[in-house]
């Protein structure tokens, strides 16, 4: 990387307090884990201030200083809490070794425009730290679940064996339970049977509705639109109760078709919204041109309009699929035990027996969702690329 700005070493009065502040934060984490937050903050700040001062003033060699910090922190971790703390300590050591010299040498200014004021530099980095923290808080609950699903015990607990990375603390038995237990397999099968059909219905009806509603001559467009997307706005429990009584009267309650229809109704608003958004950019003269050349409306739709609005249809379909696949409230009302889906099974499992099989299923679902989203995104990029190459 090219340095934009000439850099110079910063004064002690700048980098030592900043490192101390970071040390206080790290001390807060360590202290809280050991039931004394305040002591952790004070010790962390003092210790890091001393280290920062010492390594920059006494040890001239940066590499040596960073290795020394790394080793000291790792060792301190090992003494305090064994193998798992060693990893944490080593991570802290790596970070602080880098951080101290990053500040000390003034490298933090390296890639920023030279005319920025100190306030702007501060904001530049605070913004990144805030974004990082938000990301951290969003992602941690999901990540924590994954190692727990390999637990050898039947509780949501990090056992001492797990924390010491001993193989006997880990096991695949919860995955085995998921793949061999008839209840879970039935639930998986039901989900797989319900979601695609519900998605197909949502996409067909939602796309048709969006195309119809985008015609300027349709009367009461706003009202119809509001009614069609109401399942997204009305609280789910109210839709569910309403569907329960209605479906009971007409004999759909507790049937496969009933659940599929209910989920299709929930998925339609997503399709309408995404397809309507893509239709905004659709040039209507293309359909007129097709008609002019003798294509009937159906051919026009499939040959001209559909390929152009396909990205909207696909993302709508994805939302509709996930809505059906994740849904627990409506299926509890509209379904019966014969239509027990994965979320339903997870719900009863959490209530009755806190078994890590739920975590194993959650991990599998997370992996599947990531794979699904990646595939769709790659397909979308590919079609964009292809379209960019084709004329017009």
């Amino acid at each position, binding site marked *: 990387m090219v340095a934009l700005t000439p850099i110079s070493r910063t004064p002690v009065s700048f980098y030592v307090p900043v490192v101390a502040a970071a040390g206080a934060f790290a001390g807060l984490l360590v202290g809280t884990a050991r039931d004394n937050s305040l002591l952790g903050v004070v010790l962390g700040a003092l210790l890091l201030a001393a280290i920062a001062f010492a390594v920059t003033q006494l040890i001239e060699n940066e590499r040596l200083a960073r290795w020394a910090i790394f080793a000291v922190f790792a060792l301190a971790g090992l003494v305090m809490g064994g193998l798992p703390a060693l990893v944490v300590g080593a991570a802290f050591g790596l970070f602080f070794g880098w951080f101290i010299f990053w500040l000390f040498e003034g490298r933090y200014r390296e890639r920023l425009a030279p005319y920025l004021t100190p306030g702007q530099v501060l904001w530049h980095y605070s913004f990144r730290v805030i974004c990082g923290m938000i990301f951290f808080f969003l992602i941690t609950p999901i990540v924590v679940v994954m190692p727990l699903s390999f637990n050898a*015990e*039947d*509780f*949501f*607990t990090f056992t001492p064996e797990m924390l010491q990375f001993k193989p006997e603390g880990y096991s695949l038995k919860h995955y085995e339970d998921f793949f061999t237990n008839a*209840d879970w397999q039935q639930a998986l099968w039901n989900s797989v049977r319900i979601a695609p*059909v519900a998605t*197909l219905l949502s996409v*067909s009806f939602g796309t048709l509705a969006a195309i119809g509603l985008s015609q300027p001559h349709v009367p009461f467009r706003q009202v119809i639109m509001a009614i069609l997307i109401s399942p997204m706005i009305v609280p789910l429990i109210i839709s569910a*109760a309403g569907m*329960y*009584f209605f479906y*009971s*009267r007409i*004999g759909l*309650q*507790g*049937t*496969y*078709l*009933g659940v*599929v229809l209910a989920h299709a109704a929930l998925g339609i608003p997503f399709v309408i919204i995404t397809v309507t958004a893509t239709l905004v950019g659709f040039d209507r003269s293309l359909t007129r041109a097709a008609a002019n050349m003798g294509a009937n409306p*159906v*051919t026009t*739709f*499939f*040959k001209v309009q559909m390929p152009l609005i396909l990205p909207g249809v696909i993302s709508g379909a994805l939302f509709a699929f996930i809505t059906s696949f994740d849904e627990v409230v409506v299926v509890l009302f509209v379904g*019966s*035990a*014969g239509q027990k889906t994965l979320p339903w099974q997870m719900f*009863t*499992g*959490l*209530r*009755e*027996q*806190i078994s890590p099989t739920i975590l194993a299923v959650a991990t599998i679902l997370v992996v599947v969702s990531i794979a699904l989203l990646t595939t769709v995104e790659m397909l979308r990029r590919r079609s964009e690329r292809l379209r960019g190459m084709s004329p017009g």
Partner: protein
Amino acid sequence: MNRTTALLGSAALALTAASALAEGHMAGEMTIVSWGGAYSASQQNAYHTPYMENTGITIINDESSPEAVAKLRAMEEAGNITWDLVDVEAADAIRLCDEGLAMEIDHDEVLAAAPDGTSASDDFGDSIISDCFIPQIVFSTTMGYRTDLVGDTPPSNICAIFDLETYPGKRALNKRPLANMEWALLCDGVEKADVYDVLETEEGQERALAKLGTIKDQTVWWTAAAETPQLLADGEVVMGSTYNGRLFSAIAEQGQPIGMLWDEQMLDFDGWIVPAGLPEDRLARVLDYLKFATDTQRLADQAAYISYGPARASSAPLVGQHAELGIEMAPHMPTDPNNAQSVLVTQYDFWADYRDDIDAKFQAWLAQ
């Protein structure tokens, strides 16, 4: 392209329609509602599997017992009873019976007599707490504690929950007044015989809440019985109340460092109710199942899978070993004479009269 899509679409629709028609209430199916987890598994092993083998009827398990009352009301309202048999706690059975949502049963006519000829109603005895209720098991709410966190003197008395000096640390208690109020009064020096007389009065309720107040900031309140074993396994709490079967499973099946206390265990019953208004043919099938599933041998069989006591007196001598671990199950039953030296039996009449009032006070106190 359009033809393929249309073909695919219509094929999918035809498939849905066909499978929708194939479902519905088929002749050989019965939906039985229960609590899920290990409890449903014990019923599956002891009742459902042998019954399905004998008769060829398919039993579908619905794990909706926690919301049974609300769902039965909704079914009644919608005129669409989809359940055939429901497993509920005794208190819910009384409520459903009063509302006319459960069918009244003549126990001697519907249920099998004991092998020695004792009539069903005598064999079940006191556990028939309502005309609609067909008892199955006796369970108790009791205390479990971490053996490694209580020092050299493990608790031997229920009042250990209130003893923060000897047993410092968090406790887990049920987020409803039942059992908590009784224990609080007992540990505040009220004689056992007077507990409910005291609890009837305004001052008595205040007194129980005041006693609970001494440990309020050290208490984790649970709503699902699975929480206490989880908290104990984590070491988050030193002791906590839960159902005795949960503690047995955590100790004997999972090998956790947990001990349990039988002192002043709160006994309660769980059993079947038949929803009111079933059509003739389904009712006949349910009654046939009930006669089989509540006979002396079947109730004793269930105890091989879970440590809840059979509700029939004649089943007790037949209780054998745990199906997988080979442990003698009789000493783990709440009704075993050694365990039942001091028990509280849930007073349904009292709680029917005072439940709403005390519940409201308890929840308000929790929110303070």
